[in-house]
C-alpha cells in the first residue's frame, strides 16, 4: 500500500513533528508533546491537520432516501446546512463506521468517514446504491481538513474568516465548508476545503496563536470525552447499542441493520463502559480487565488522561456503574472502577 501524505506534510516536518503511519497516511503524532498539546486544546486553542479523514460526495435526486437507508439517521429531518453524526451498519447491525453527514442541498451531501474505512464505506455505498438514483464520488485526496478546537477556537475562526458556526451546523464559502464539529469535546470547528488552499489556513491559524496538535493528543482528548475510535472501540463486531450510542438511531425509518438492532434491543448485551484507574499507572489498549478474579474483557482504548492525571480506558462489559474491577498491567492487578462516560 502507498503511504499518503497530507498537503501539509512538509510543514509538519519543519515544525519538528514526530510523524508516524496512521491508516495509510503519514501523520503528525506530536509536535511539542502530547500533554502540552492536550492542555492547549482544553484551555486555549489547537489546530489539527486531519486531512486523512475521508470526503465522499453523494449527489442526485435520491440522495436523502439513499443516505437514510444506509445510515442510522433519517436525513429527511436534516435542513440544508446541518451536520449529523450517525453510524453506517452492516446487515447484522454492527458498526462499519461512524460518520458525519453534511446536508449541502436535498441533492448533495458530503460524508466524512474515518481514514481507515474510506474505501470500505465507499464500496459499501456503491454496492447498496443500485436501487437509488445517486452518484457517489470519493474525493478524499482533493480536500484538506483542519480541526480548530478549544475555548478560543471560534474567536480565531472569526478573525480568520469573519464567520461563526453553531454546533453541528456548517457554512459554505465557495468550495470551503466550515462546520461546528470536532473530536475533542471542546468548542470548535472543522475547515474542509480544496487541498491546494490548506497552507494559507494553517499558517494564518498558527500566526494567531493556535497550537499545532498531533494525533497523540487527539486520541487522549477524544478518550476523555468517551468518543469512539474507529478500528478500536468498534471493529466490525459491535452495534451502536453496545457502544452506548443508541441516540444515533432514528427508529422511525428503515435502514440497513435495523432488524438486527430491534432483536438486540430485547436481549441483554455488553456495553462499552468507562474504566478509571484508582492507583497510579497507565492502562493501554488490549490490557485485560478483571472482576472478582475473573478476566471479563480487555480495553478497546486506554491511556493516561492528561486532564485528570489518571489512567482511563474503555471496555465492553456488563457491570453496574461503580463496580470494582482491576486491570492487569505487566502481571500486576491495578484497582479500577466502572464510571459513567464521559470521563470529563
Amino acid at each position, binding site marked *: 500500500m502507498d503511504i499518503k501524505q497530507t498537503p501539509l506534510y512538509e510543514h509538519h516536518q519543519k515544525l519538528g513533528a*514526530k510523524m508516524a503511519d496512521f491508516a495509510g497516511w503519514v501523520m503528525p*503524532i*506530536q509536535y511539542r*508533546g*502530547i*500533554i*502540552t498539546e492536550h492542555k492547549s486544546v482544553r484551555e486555549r486553542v489547537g489546530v489539527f491537520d486531519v486531512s486523512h479523514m475521508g470526503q465522499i460526495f453523494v449527489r442526485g435526486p435520491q440522495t436523502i432516501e439513499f443516505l437514510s437507508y444506509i445510515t442510522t439517521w433519517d436525513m429527511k429531518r436534516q435542513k440544508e446546512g446541518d451536520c449529523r453524526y450517525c453510524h453506517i451498519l452492516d446487515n447484522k447491525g454492527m458498526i462499519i463506521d461512524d460518520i458525519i453527514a453534511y446536508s449541502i442541498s436535498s441533492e448533495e451531501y458530503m460524508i466524512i468517514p474515518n481514514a481507515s474505512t474510506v474505501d470500505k464505506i465507499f464500496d459499501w455505498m456503491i454496492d447498496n446504491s443500485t436501487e437509488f438514483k445517486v452518484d457517489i464520488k470519493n474525493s478524499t485526496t482533493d480536500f484538506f481538513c483542519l480541526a480548530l478546537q478549544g475555548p478560543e477556537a471560534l474567536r480565531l475562526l472569526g478573525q480568520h474568516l469573519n464567520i461563526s458556526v453553531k454546533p453541528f451546523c456548517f457554512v459554505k464559502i465557495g468550495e470551503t465548508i466550515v462546520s461546528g464539529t470536532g473530536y475533542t469535546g471542546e468548542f470548535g470547528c472543522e475547515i474542509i476545503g480544496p487541498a491546494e488552499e490548506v497552507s494559507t489556513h494553517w499558517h494564518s491559524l498558527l500566526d494567531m496563536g493556535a497550537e499545532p496538535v498531533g494525533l*497523540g493528543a487527539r486520541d*487522549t482528548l477524544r478518550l476523555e470525552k468517551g468518543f469512539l475510535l474507529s478500528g478500536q472501540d468498534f471493529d466490525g463486531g459491535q452495534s451502536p447499542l453496545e457502544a452506548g450510542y443508541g441516540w444515533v438511531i432514528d427508529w422511525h425509518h428503515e435502514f440497513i441493520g435495523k432488524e438486527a438492532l430491534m432483536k438486540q434491543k430485547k436481549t441483554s448485551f455488553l456495553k462499552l463502559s468507562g474504566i478509571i484507574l484508582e492507583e*497510579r*499507572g*497507565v492502562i*493501554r489498549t488490549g490490557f485485560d480487565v478483571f472482576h472478582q478474579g475473573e478476566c471479563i474483557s480487555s480495553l478497546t482504548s486506554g*491511556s*493516561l488522561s*492528561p486532564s485528570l492525571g489518571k489512567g482511563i480506558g474503555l471496555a465492553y462489559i456488563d457491570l453496574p456503574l461503580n463496580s470494582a474491577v482491576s486491570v492487569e498491567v*505487566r502481571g500486576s492487578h491495578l484497582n479500577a472502577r466502572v464510571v459513567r462516560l464521559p470521563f470529563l
Partner: protein
Amino acid sequence: MSEVPENLFYTKEHEWVLLEKDGKVRIGITHYAQESLSDVVFVELPEIGTDYSKGDVMAVAESVKAASDIYAPVSGKVIEINNKLEESPELINESPYDFGWLVLIDPERDVEGLWNSQTYRDSIA
C-alpha cells in the same frame, strides 16, 4: 542535539551510569531516551533491596503513547530509589542526568562492559 555528559558511562539501551566515589552506581535514562519517549507520565521503580542481574528489566518509564523497559546496566542490589519520580515523573524529561535519576545500585563486582560518552554519542548520531 542530545546532551551526552562526558563523566558518565552508557548502555546501548540509552541508560546512563554514574560511578559514585563510594563505589555505588547511580542510574538514569539519557537525554536522547527521554526525548524519544517524550512526556514521561509514570515510572515504575524497583523495591529497595532487590537484586538484579545485568540486563534484567528493573524499571519501566511510561509516556502517554508507550511503555519503555529500563534494564539493569550492572548486576547488584538496589539501595535507593528516586522517590520524587512518583509525584513528578516529568523530572526525567526536565533533568534526565540530575533530578531525574532512577536508582542507586550497590554493584556486585567491578562495573564493566559499558560505553564511554564518545561511543554512545556515535551510536545516536
